[in-house]
Structure formats: structure tokens, C-alpha cells
């Protein structure tokens, strides 16, 4: 005999899951009990939203789905922001929620919430399991859907009686039989041919690389294609890290907070090759202006993204990896006219400017650049949301490491829990968080998770006592009326670290930056570095 909860654990084992992030409650107790008796590690987070972020950080670091677990009602609704974040960022996670007894659903009993209904806009698919015998099929389908095509979250809601009911035996399906879900990954040869012709006839081409390149695992193919053809590359925020930051062909991040070189290049290009990028408004605010001058090739695994925000000359629906492999094989001897690469290099050089410094404060951009030199190879940097994110996106020099942030949803409080997931996924790598004093206050409850699990995560808080990015918007659009963006009564973050038993340091000058970074990186285990940054330091 095997009960539903044990079946759920067996399903996770079959899918190769070794860790789940979660928070318990009455309706999910059978499942946590079964996990307790299994080799799968259960990590207790301090709020359910962070379980989803941890699962996302884990998934992005190992290219496997992350799993988060919460109870019914408020536990499940707390997950929503994390699920929505994974959805917008196209990260494969499986969210498992407990639900009230199936015969009580719809009666508004204690801790009941229609979570499959509430999550409908934010998941690739969701299941409310009504029968214990359905569990193996549901889990098989859920993992398949989350990880194939355009990745994304899948929710499985399991009433407590379904977890308790028993079956005689457990059998996991070998294959998935979904008549309605067959994501197309194969690119069309005709479209590839058209694209190659367009590239060959272009004089000022650029590649815009997005998160899809990372999720399809074709980073190196794309770099090879760029090097072969000398086509310059810019990235969206989700695509940072595809090209080494110091690469001669890399123009930096595109968009409202990106580099001038990248933004100028996309407006003067005669061909834009979008690779796994969805033309979000923060990257390309005026796609119509771009298409007036340039032809567009758009490669995306999600056909619905092609033509949604920008008209396209050659749509290529399919796996970016496959398309780039074809490009590499079929492009022949084409090389970008030297005048275009030279022009871009000069724009790039013109972009280099010394950041403004303020007496008594640390300059965060040069600090982040210095940090990137100090971390070990393959380090994972997790940036939160706001000015800290932009400072990192534009100044953290990546060679072979990863840059994790929520570029799609922009959820404050993402960094610390996502770093926890990343550290569990890659325990031997440097994992460094950069967040603001606003975002840190949204997630520092997870310091307890870090301490409980002895995680070696370094946290840098950019303390400018402001919600800096909103304040910038207020300066430009709202007559500098700083409504609710002043973080007065800011706590002493070092005392908070101390309360958790985490060593810390305070940094307020550029001269001490190198020593502070060394001290942080050389300290064994978690460390909190509070950086005193001027409220006047701009994002860009």
C-alpha cells in the first residue's frame, strides 16, 4: 500500500528532484511527512513567496526545474508573486500546494483558496487533483510542460484526502500523452534560408540576445556565430551573461536603463536579429521606430511572441539553439562590413565615463565593477530590483559566471531567496547578492534560512535610504515630490546580521572597497556588507 503523499514523493524522485523549498501547514502535512522519510531535502523558507523564488534561483542555476511547496489558503496565495515572477521570466518551476479535503472544496472552509483559479494567468498549466490514481500522470505532465517549449511554472493543487488515500502500487508513466501540447522546437528550413539571405545582404546587422538563449543552452553557439560573422551583440536584462562583458563585439544591455551604444545601434541597424528575446517595453520601447529602418529576424520558441510587439520580416518559430546552429553551418564567409563594427566600437568607447562621486559615500558602479574582478570564476551574482539591479546589469563584468535577476516581472525581494536556491544548486560556486535597502527589507527574513543551512552567501546591501528608482521617476515626472520613497527609520542592518549571527561590515568610501570585498569573500560562510551610497547616485 502506498498513499498519495508517498506517490508524490516517488514522482519527484523519478523526475530527479533532490530538494524542495517550502513552508508547511495542515493541508500539506501528509506530503511533508512523506518527504521527511525520503532522501529528498526539504528546505524551510520563512515566507512562501521566497520558496518560489528559491525554486527559480535553483532552476536557473542547474537548468532543471525547481520545486516549491506550500499549504492551502494563505500559504498558496503567498506563492503567487513567486509563481508570477517565474512565469514572466520563463523559468521552469513546479509549485505544489495542499488543498482542503476534496469534498469540502467550495464551502469556504478554513484556509481554503481557489489557487488554481487565482494562478490561471501566471502558470503554463495547473492541476487540481481529484483522484489519487491521477497523481503519477499529473506529475509526469507537469514536469514535461514546465520544461519543454517555453519554460514556465506549473501548479499542482492536491487536497489533503488525495494525499492520504492509498493505492496498491505506484507506477510512473514512461511517456506523456497530451494531444493538445506538442511544442514545436524544429525550425523551418525555408525560414532559415530566408534569414541567412537577409543576414548576408545586411550592412549594419545587430544581434539582440534574450533569456531564451540561456534557457535553450546555446550561449556558446551564439558567441561563435557572432565571432565568425563579427555581428555585434546586445542583450536584454534576462540575456546578460550570454556574451562575456568584455567581449569586443558586446554592446551591453539594451533598453531604458541600458547602454547608449546598444540603444543607438538598434536604431541605426539595417537588420535586427532577435534571439530568444520577447521585445519587452523596457528593452525596446519604440519597436515601430526600429522597424522603419531595419529588417527583423525573430527567433523564439513561443510563436505568440513573434509579431506581438514588433512586426517581423522573417519569423523563426522554434528552438533558438537549433536556429543558431543552422546559422553557424550555413552562413558561409559572410562578415560584417568593418565600418559598422568600427562605428560601434567608437560609440562604445564614448560610453565610458567616470561615475560621479559623492563625499562620504561609496560609488556603487565602480564598486560593482571591482566586485566582478574579485569573485571566483563561474560566480553567480543575484541582483534584486531597482537601482542596484541597473548598477549590476551595466557594471558587473561577467566572463563565465551567471547573472540572475528578475528582468520580466521585476519583483523586489527576489535576490536573497533566489541566491539560496542558486547556492543549493551550485554549492561550490561564489554566490553573491546585491540588493537595495528597500529590497533587502522585503526578504531579509531569509537570513534565517541561510543560517539554518550554513549557506555561504555574501549579501551586499546598497544603503541609500531611498527607494532610488522610484525616486528617479519622481524627479523626472512628478516634480521631485518624493512621495513614500524616503526609507526613514532605516534599521541598523549590521545589528540585524548580528541578530542572526552573521558577520558584517560597513563600507562608505571607495578607498576601503577592495579591503571590504576581500574581507567579505575571505570570510567563511554568510556575510553582510552594508554599502553607504549617496541618495543622489543615479541609476545610469
Amino acid at each position, binding site marked *: 500500500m502506498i498513499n498519495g503523499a508517498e506517490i508524490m514523493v516517488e514522482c519527484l524522485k523519478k523526475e530527479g528532484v533532490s530538494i524542495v523549498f517550502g513552508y508547511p501547514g495542515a493541508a500539506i502535512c501528509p506530503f511533508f511527512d512523506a518527504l521527511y522519510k525520503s532522501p529528498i531535502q526539504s528546505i524551510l523558507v520563512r515566507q512562501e513567496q521566497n520558496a518560489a523564488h528559491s525554486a527559480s534561483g535553483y532552476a536557473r542555476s542547474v537548468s532543471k526545474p525547481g520545486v516549491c511547496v506550500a499549504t492551502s489558503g494563505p500559504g498558496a496565495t503567498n506563492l503567487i508573486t513567486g509563481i508570477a515572477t517565474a512565469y514572466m521570466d520563463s523559468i521552469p518551476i513546479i509549485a505544489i500546494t495542499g488543498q482542503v479535503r476534496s469534498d469540502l472544496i467550495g464551502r469556504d472552509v478554513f484556509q481554503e483558496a481557489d489557487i488554481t*483559479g487565482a494562478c*490561471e494567468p501566471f502558470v503554463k498549466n495547473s492541476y*487540481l487533483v481529484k483522484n489519487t490514481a491521477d497523481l503519477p500522470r499529473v506529475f509526469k505532465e507537469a514536469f514535461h*510542460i514546465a520544461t519543454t517549449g517555453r519554460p514556465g511554472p506549473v501548479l499542482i493543487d492536491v487536497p489533503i484526502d488525495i494525499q492520504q488515500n492509498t493505492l496498491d502500487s505506484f507506477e510512473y508513466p514512461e511517456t506523456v500523452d497530451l494531444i493538445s501540447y506538442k511544442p514545436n522546437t524544429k525550425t523551418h528550413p525555408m525560414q532559415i534560408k530566408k534569414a541567412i539571405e537577409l543576414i548576408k545582404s545586411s550592412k549594419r546587422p545587430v544581434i539582440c540576445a534574450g533569456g531564451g538563449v540561456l534557457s535553450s543552452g546555446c550561449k556558446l553557439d551564439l558567441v561563435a556565430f557572432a565571432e565568425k560573422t563579427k555581428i555585434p551583440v546586445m542583450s536584454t536584462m534576462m540575456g546578460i551573461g550570454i556574451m562575456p562583458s568584455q567581449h569586443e563585439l558586446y554592446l551591453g544591455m539594451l533598453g531604458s536603463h541600458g547602454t547608449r551604444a546598444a540603444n543607438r545601434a538598434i536604431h541605426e541597424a539595417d537588420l535586427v536579429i532577435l534571439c530568444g528575446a520577447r521585445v519587452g517595453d523596457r528593452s525596446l520601447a519604440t519597436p515601430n521606430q526600429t522597424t522603419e529602418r531595419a529588417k527583423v529576424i525573430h527567433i523564439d520558441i513561443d510563436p505568440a511572441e513573434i509579431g*506581438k510587439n514588433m512586426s517581423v520580416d522573417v519569423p523563426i518559430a522554434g528552438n533558438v539553439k537549433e536556429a543558431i546552429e543552422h546559422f553557424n553551418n550555413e552562413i558561409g564567409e559572410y562578415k560584417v562590413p568593418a565600418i559598422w563594427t568600427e562605428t560601434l566600437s567608437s560609440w562604445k568607447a564614448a560610453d565610458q565615463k567616470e561615475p560621479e562621486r559623492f563625499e562620504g559615500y561609496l560609488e556603487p558602479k565602480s564598486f560593482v565593477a571591482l566586485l566582478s574582478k574579485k569573485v571566483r570564476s563561474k560566480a553567480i551574482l543575484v541582483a534584486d530590483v531597482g537601482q542596484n539591479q541597473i548598477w549590476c546589469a551595466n557594471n558587473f563584468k561577467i566572463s563565465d559566471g551567471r547573472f540572475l535577476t528578475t528582468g520580466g516581472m521585476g519583483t523586489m525581494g527576489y535576490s536573497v531567496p533566489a541566491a539560496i536556491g542558486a547556492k543549493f544548486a551550485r554549492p561550490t560556486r561564489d554566490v553573491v547578492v546585491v540588493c537595495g535597502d528597500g529590497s533587502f527589507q522585503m526578504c531579509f527574513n531569509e537570513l534565517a534560512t541561510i543560517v539554518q543551512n550554513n549557506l555561504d552567501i555574501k549579501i551586499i546591501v546598497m544603503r541609500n535610504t531611498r527607494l532610488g528608482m522610484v525616486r528617479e521617476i519622481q524627479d523626472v515626472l512628478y516634480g521631485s515630490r518624493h512621495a513614500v520613497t524616503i526609507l526613514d527609520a532605516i534599521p541598523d542592518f549590521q545589528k540585524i546580521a548580528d541578530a542572526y549571527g552573521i558577520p558584517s561590515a560597513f563600507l562608505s568610501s571607495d578607498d576601503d572597497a577592495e579591503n571590504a570585498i576581500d574581507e567579505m569573500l575571505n570570510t567563511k560562510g554568510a556575510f553582510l556588507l552594508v554599502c553607504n551610497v549617496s541618495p543622489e547616485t543615479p541609476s545610469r
Partner: protein
Amino acid sequence: MKYTLSVLVENQAGVLSKISGLFSRRGFNIDSLAVGIAETPNLSRITIVVNGDEYLIEQLEKQLNKLISVVKVKVLDNNTISRELALIKVNANSKTRFEIIKIAEVTKSNIANISANTITIECSNTTDNIETLIMLLKPYGIKQIARTGTVALENGDSSAK
């Protein structure tokens, strides 16, 4: 312009709310929506009429295809048979009853119910013809209308499967 979509879906709990939710959150306006069991019992066919342009229809088709329970989406062209059922309850007295029955005959409608003061007409026809019937009946005083929304299939051998 009006477009008719034939959407084949898996017959599961919540599928209709998934589809209607998609319409509202993407800002698509539904003119009519009709749903019923299709040729195989595990599938339902939803016929949706929307007002929009080519861009909207392309988006709609792609977004519908992304829903896991959607098996097939087809935008129907002019080579289509489309029907709607309407029940129209109209005031009728001894003076007007004969005229109303005549209107029903001319428009190939049936008399579904008759009482001392009303006639209920049952009309299965294209949306345009139903509109015409309603226009003709208006002067007598329409009490209630119930309409199913359009259902549609392609003509001849072709089948949206």
C-alpha cells in the same frame, strides 16, 4: 471586422474559464461564445465570434494555442456554415397574432409557444437573419430574447480537427 473561430478543447473542468480569462486579460472582446460536446466525447467545440483586425486575430489564435487544454484553433473563412438559435417572446393579441405568425413563416422560424398575450418564436438562422427577424418583431413589443451565439462548421469535406 467580425471573425469566427472554431476552437477544439479537451473536455476538462475549468477549460471555459481558461478561455474566457484569456480574452479578458489580453483585452479581446467576445461578440458571442457557444460551447458543446464535439464529435468525440472527450472534446468540446467552442465557437467564438470576435470583432477585431488581422493582428488581433493572429494574437488570439497564438495565445489560444498556448493553453494546454486547447487542441486546435481554426479561424473560419467565408466558406462556412454558421447558425444561431434565438427564442423571441413577443406581445401578440387577436389583432396582431396572424401577422406575427406570417413573419415567422416568411423567415423560416417556428412557433415554439403561444399564449393569450404572447407568441414565442424559435429561429435557427444566421446572425444577420436573426437580426432581421428581431427588427420585424420590434413594433409588436418584444418581451424577452434568448440567443445561443453562433456555432459554425466549414462547408463540405474540410474539417477543423
